[in-house]
């Protein structure tokens, strides 16, 4: 023992990785971020998420105001309430970011996603696929004798459900846009 009352070389602690006792409940939030449509702005947003270890479940971006050159980035992210707050604050301090909205807490909102699903099959399976597509209000946008491409729009859960149903019927390929979201009312 040194006179310092700690055994030399004995500490199992490190100065890092000491997370506080914040709530560890994981929440999923949808954020709408209005940004200047300038080069690199998406890289800044994505770099923030990867650099600070946040999750991106889904991300969509497009210019929504062609005269003001602003884009809307819709991000679905998962984290503890404290992490979600941090994400919003960190997004807010990116210089070309104008507004950050947390649609999950700012009242009711609608979320829509578009997906294309290619389903391969013949006979009964093919008929069943078409019948289910009708129920889900999916449109066949391409067809061959042995395949369909369905277009479906809806909340991500609806698309998940449709994809699950299509899987045994010959789902071979899927493309999803990610979520676009907007608050209800004014």
């Amino acid at each position, binding site marked *: 023992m040194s*006179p*310092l*009352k*700690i055994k*030399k*070389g004995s*500490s*199992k*602690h*490190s*100065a*890092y990785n*000491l*997370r*506080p*006792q*914040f709530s560890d409940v994981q929440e999923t939030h949808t954020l709408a971020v209005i940004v*200047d449509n300038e*080069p*690199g702005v998406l*890289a*800044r947003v994505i*770099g923030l998420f990867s*650099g600070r270890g946040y999750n991106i479940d889904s991300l969509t971006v497009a210019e929504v105001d062609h005269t003001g050159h602003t884009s809307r980035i819709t991000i679905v992210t998962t984290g503890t309430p*404290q992490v979600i*707050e*941090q994400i919003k*604050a*960190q997004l*807010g*301090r*990116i*210089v*070309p970011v*104008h507004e950050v909205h947390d649609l999950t807490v700012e009242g009711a909102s609608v979320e829509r996603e578009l997906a294309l699903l290619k389903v391969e099959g013949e006979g009964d399976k093919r008929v069943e696929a078409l019948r289910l597509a009708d129920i889900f209000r999916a449109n066949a946008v391409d067809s061959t004798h042995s395949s369909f491409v369905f277009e479906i729009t809806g909340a991500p859960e609806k698309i998940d459900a449709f994809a699950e149903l299509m899987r045994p019927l010959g789902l071979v390929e899927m493309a999803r846009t990610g979520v676009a979201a907007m608050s209800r009312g004014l």
Partner: protein
Amino acid sequence: MTRQMTGAKMVVQALKDQGVDVVFGYPGGAVLPIYDEIFQQNDIRHVLVRHEQGAVHAAEGYARSTGKPGVVLVTSGPGATNAVTGLTDALMDSIPLVVLTGQVPTFMIGTDAFQEADTVGITRPCTKHNWLVSDTKNLSDTIHQAFHVATSGRPGPVLIDIPKDVQFASADYVGPQKARTHHYQPQVKGDIEGITDLVAAIEKAKRPVFYTGGGVINSGPAASQLLRELVEATGIPITSTLMGLGAYPASGKHWLGMLGMHGLYEANMAMHGCDLMINIGARFDDRITGRLDAFSPDSTKAHIDIDPSSINKVIKTDIPIVGDIAHVLEDVLKVWKSRGRKVNGEGLAKWWARIEEWRKVDCLKFKQQGKTIKPQYALHRLEELTKGHDRYICTEVGQHQMWAAQYMGFEGPNRWMTSGGLGTMGYGFPASIGVQMAHPEALVINVAGEASWLMNMQEMGTAVQYRLPVKQFILNNERLGMVRQWQELLHGERYSSSWSEALPDFVKLAEAFGAKGILCKDPADLDDAIMEMLDYDGPVIFDCLVEKHENCFPMIPSGEPHNKMLLGEVSTKDAIKEGGAVLV
């Protein structure tokens, strides 16, 4: 009236219009047109450094000591990548910088051209914001915006990448007044509800403490003035982070000293035992908090910060106030006065009595005995012999940095330049050059370790060329002292690669550059040697050979809370001898 000019001329004109008087830089192919313009004018002085990292740290020293943004000009490719460490350092410590980099011509971008690098890509995570200017007509406007972004809100480094063809082409120059007002306008006034809550908490608190940081310095001299007024009026004890030293004077009677991993016993104990913690412009860094789940367990926490992302980042705040420190403190004082200037006098008296008990521990005491200089003694003497001077202190990173923070007193803001967040060895020497450029008549000392100092020693050339009388006070223990200390305490005394072998003869090194070298190894000679350094009108390397195995105390061992501090060997031994309570 609009004026047509080349991009290169625009750069120089915009810098002049922004009040820039010094640029730190290094030329290269992609910035030659700008260097040509600099050659043809006398308003802006260019300091030729010896490495681009040195340019950025020098600009940091300039910015930190003046409150104005530092300006850097470097070339493309390696010029830009060498600047990355300095940019990251400035981002971590919120230092306003405008860094201009040359880039290959626009038509060559993406072709792996000679000295091409994706500068905006590389520097995106280490700047507050950056721009690639692809058209000369946007150049002057971008430069004015860059100054706005660097200096508003939480300050930070920004970078403008300027392709060579953009420097050659001509367009209309836009002055600062006509530049587009950027939508980036951070909130400076604090929310009055939060301020009222804070005042109410101050009125009731039995054991309050101010915990201040670099934000007070960044907010400007008015913030330091208001902080002093608030502390004196309320009688609340105050401690500060490494970055905040000088905002409240070290000679002030409410001063507890620095807090944190190597902070003073009384400061850390006050943080642990307080019932109201008022964080002003600090960010609950891990070097401050130690173990988070045992951090100041019984306190209400107020946090004033201009950056909303600092609030609730690591520590849950009860009273958050987003705003500029000077604006918020002004309102706090106003509200506190209007409500009758109340404090909990009885509680405060008891609190101060406890603090006085902690002070008696005298955690910084050391014994200078024998023929070897203790580093603490060296800094104690340096402090005694220089404290009357118009003095600026820079440091490198390591044990010497902590000792400088502990043993030197800072009476005003902007007098202490150190790499806090990033902990960049090699910061101090170039920073001292930047400080001396801004304050030619002042005494500028860089307290260094020999290992840190060697990291940017090439800047001796700069110091000599520009006749900058910077004093390099090297505490030479022939070790990477802080690494050695951690290896002793945490890695079974296996000193893996933590000694400095093949060190230069620093006196001869100084002479080789045309500067003065002083070697001191006997405590009896120390005062005379320091006086010799101070009396010499020119750069000095002071090689102070110190005790090789001295550890830096007090120390909160990693993973422990504030009240589990290790004190120095001397005080621990004494405590055991007296049979008193062991304080560790």
